[in-house]
């Protein structure tokens, strides 16, 4: 029987993979993918906690909201990445240091 800890474990693994991607990759697109992984780990948690705690659909609704927001975020982020690429011919995040203090 699949219980809550199994969901949480998968979610933690997903989150760890996301963090790993964000920390290690320099490619801006890969970074975004890492962020998506972490978000989805969170979504999974929402759904899982909702299912096993008090049988309402609150968690799922929050997950839906989060997925939509993430979509919008990705759209904006990709536009920024595209513009960065136009300006400095690369999407290596380390190279985009113009705003560095």
């Amino acid at each position: 029987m699949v219980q809550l800890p199994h969901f949480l474990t998968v979610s933690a693994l997903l989150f760890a993979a996301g963090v790993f991607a964000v920390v290690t990759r320099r490619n801006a697109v890969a970074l975004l993918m890492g962020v998506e992984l972490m978000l989805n780990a969170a979504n999974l948690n929402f759904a899982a906690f909702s299912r096993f705690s008090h049988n309402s659909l609150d968690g799922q609704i929050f997950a839906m909201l989060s997925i939509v927001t993430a979509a919008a975020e990705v759209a904006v982020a990709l536009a920024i990445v595209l513009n960065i690429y136009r300006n400095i011919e690369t999407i290596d995040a380390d190279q985009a240091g113009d705003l560095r203090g």
Partner: protein
Amino acid sequence: METTITTYALILALPLVAFVVQVFFGKRLPRGGDWLVIGAICIDLLLSLRVFFGALFFSSFAGTPFVWNLRGWLGDAGTGVLALSTGILVDNVTAMMLVVVTSCSTLIFLFSTGYMAGHRRYSLFFAYLSLFAFSMLLLVLGNNLIALFMGWELVGLSSYLLIGFLFEEPVVAPDIVPASACKKAFITNRIGDTGFLLGILTLFSFTGKIAYGDVFEAVRNGAFGDHTTLLTVAGILLFCGAMAKSAQFPLHVWLPDAMAGPTPVSALIHAATMVAAGVYMVARLYPLFTPDALTFIAYVGAFTALFGATIALVMNDIKRVLAYSTISQLGYMVFGLGVGAYSAGLFHLMTHAFFKALLFLAAGSVIHAMHRAYHYAGLEWNPRSRENDAQDMRNMDGLRKAMPVTFATTAVAVLAISGVPFTSGFLSKDMILGGAFAFGFVENPQHFLIPVFGFAAAVLTAFYMARLLIMTFLGTNRMAERGQEALRESPWNMTVPLVLLAVLCGWFWYNPDPTTIFAKGWVSSFLTPPASAVPQTLVAAPADAHHAAHVAAMLVSLSCAGAGFFAAWMLGRRGAISLEHWRLSGSRVYYLLANKYYVDELYNRTVVAGMVQVSRILGWFDKVLVDGVVNATGRFQTGLSELSGFVDRYGVDGLVNALAGFVRDTGNEVRQIQTGRIQNYVVYATVGLIVLIVVTGM
């Protein structure tokens, strides 16, 4: 015959006015203004003669001297020191001094018109002479110690100026430099004057008075109380002034050098008048001297009389002989006063003034002629060498024929100074020696040396004066042919004073009796010793004792003069007695005398060198030590400020800087974390999260 202050004011003012006019306008006046000075002194002479004859024939000062006071001289304040006044006092002594000073001055001023003719500072010379006459008259006329001291110093000034009159000459005689001779005279006199001043101060501090009469009165009334020793000291201190001014041993050294002045100056100041001021001072303050002080004075005078005479024996410079003779004769006057022969001392002052002035003027006349002859012969006058020295008697000889007037008058003076009867010198010297005889042989046998010195000096005097006459005028002249042609008698304005002075050397002016046995002459009654103010005074010897002593003394002194003349005659007959042989024999005594007992050398090596050395050391001390301390303090201060600057910069300020640096460095280190890389931040966040989890978990 009453006199008024106008007379004395005129006597004082005329030479002073002449001096002032001469200084400012002398050069522009016709004849350099000599007539002005001579005119002033002539009027002075006439006024003085009036005063003198008034005193002599009408006894105008009998008992009550003429006194006039200028009140409020120091100030109007009623009491004490500021109430001191100055003024004029005239009595018989003053009257005599007035005549001596003005008559010598008149004749010598006249002589100077010939002697100084053509000198570039002719008018200035007369200005100085006039200044001298004024100062001397002030000295004589003053009625108080301060006025006496003022005149005293002022004659010193005129003496200084006149000795240094030929200041640009490197030397005027073998070893006389005018520029240093005048300084020497002034400073030596200053030493004596300091003593004199201290004497005055001693008297003033005990009596609170300065006028002669007041001081005598106060002393007589016991102002000194039991301090009679101090009165003796005061007397000796006062006499210090006389020792310098009247060239008594050991302060005589300036007088021979003073011969650097032109000869009329030597005659007037350094023979006839100024040097006698010391004698005048002792006579004027006579009531103040205690018996001890007088004995001291007598010894100094007697020793000086002999001392000067011995040196005069071997001198070859004609003026030097006369200078030492003056020292010796002044010694006579001084010991005359010292042994109580008051009138004799003053009498000798007067007679000496005339015959010594005459001797100097005659010497001047000779030197003048010699100069002219050398000049005419084309010989270079060189005072450094013995050859061609116009003042060296060895170059003279036989001037008798060329200069008969000078010769005759000199002969008279030589007789007078040697004390030959029928001359003035006989009368005065005899009185002194008589007094000394009575004092030393009759009354105070323990002081026998005083008359012995006196008589010994008399022998020597006769000898060296005769030697001077012989070497100068007798024999044959050894000057070159051409020079001899030029040797001739001096002009009238030089010979007239000689003749007049020679006339004044006659006995008849002073006493109708040339032997003084039968008549005493006017002098002893005119110049009576004043009553002493000292408590225990000299006991005057009874008159007959003096009379007896007098006759004995006269006989001894006559034989002395005879012995001296005989010796000189032997000298004249060359070979019998020869100073030259004495010199060549290398006699120590001769060289001792020729070097004047090495007194100058002694002073130069001790006093003078010592003073200069001390001043150098102190100058160094001041510059290096005293100022060094100041500079060291300054350097210490700057050092201290540098140190504190160091501490401030590296200590106090360093701490502040260190704090700032720490903050800055920490910031530098910490900001390394802020990479701007999102990944790093995520790592930090993750690690933080883990740490948080672990910590909370634990």
